[in-house]
């Protein structure tokens, strides 16, 4: 299993956009992924407060949800986002690392259903939550 995590970690860090945002795979279990992203000035969406742009949180959520689908025991060979909805519960604290946990809770022959939560370094209310559906291609 550790080999698989190592490979998945390398795979995620090989995605150019994930690398550009500095994403790190923290943990990968069957159907569950944890990915984090460090605070950076280039990610700021509100120059007056220094809060990270929602789009950067979306990219983190999307990557993490995709990783959760790929690690599902049904062993999909390829996945793509079909629909992703994000709720921004509160502004992420400037300077904090954002960590996302995604769970792929159901997979059919063609679709995967995922939920995710993003937190910063403050415990309590998450920064954002997400719900997504992903296309699935299973190895034959």
């Amino acid at each position, binding site marked *: 299993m550790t080999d698989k995590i190592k490979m998945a970690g390398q795979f995620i860090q*090989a*995605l*150019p*956009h*994930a690398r*550009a*945002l500095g994403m790190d795979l923290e943990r990968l279990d069957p159907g569950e992924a944890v990915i984090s992203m460090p605070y950076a*000035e*280039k*990610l*700021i*969406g*509100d*120059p*007056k407060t220094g809060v*990270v*742009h*929602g*789009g*950067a949180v*979306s*990219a*983190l*959520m*999307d*990557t993490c949800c*995709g990783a959760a689908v790929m690690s599902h025991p049904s062993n999909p060979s390829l996945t*793509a*986002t*079909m*629909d*992703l*909805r*994000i*709720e*921004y519960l509160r*502004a992420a604290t400037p300077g904090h690392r954002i960590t996302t946990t995604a769970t792929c809770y159901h997979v059919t022959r063609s679709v995967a259903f995922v939920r995710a939560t993003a937190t910063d370094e403050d415990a309590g209310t998450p920064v954002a939550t997400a719900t997504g559906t992903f296309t699935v291609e299973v190895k034959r």
Partner: protein
Amino acid sequence: MIKRPEPVQVIKQRRDAVLRKLVEGVPYIQFLGIQFERRGDELTAILPFKDDLIGNPMLPALHGGATAAFLEVTAIISLSWNTLWEDMENGTLDIENLDRDGLPRLPKTIDFTVDYLRSGLPRDGYARARINRAGRRYASVHVEAWQDNRSRLYAQGTGHFVMPQRQL
């Protein structure tokens, strides 16, 4: 007495200056490389292709997160632009001293839903927002994004926003 219309260059300069300030002030927009084109009050966002935007290098396809960010940026800038328009045109907005403090705060995203219709190709993307409702407190915005053909969208999105409270 009939008021003479302003010279066209004065109008263009004012509108382009405000738009530039709005877009250049946001680091994440610069990081993605998003640009805005203006026809009157209509904005078109452009996401020029670069390798950093790739999600799946095998296909290759744009990262879903880059697409989501492109749509959300288009929605926020279009919404903010729409709010600024009146003050900009009637002279209430102090164009000379437009900096971060001169511009009002940006709308805050409450939720955003992206519908991925086809995979994003490794080429430029375009997006336009339609503001379905712009209330004093909340707004609802729909965004469409395409690449080669305007009628073949690769993604669309809908979001709700909290509007910045105007200082009196």
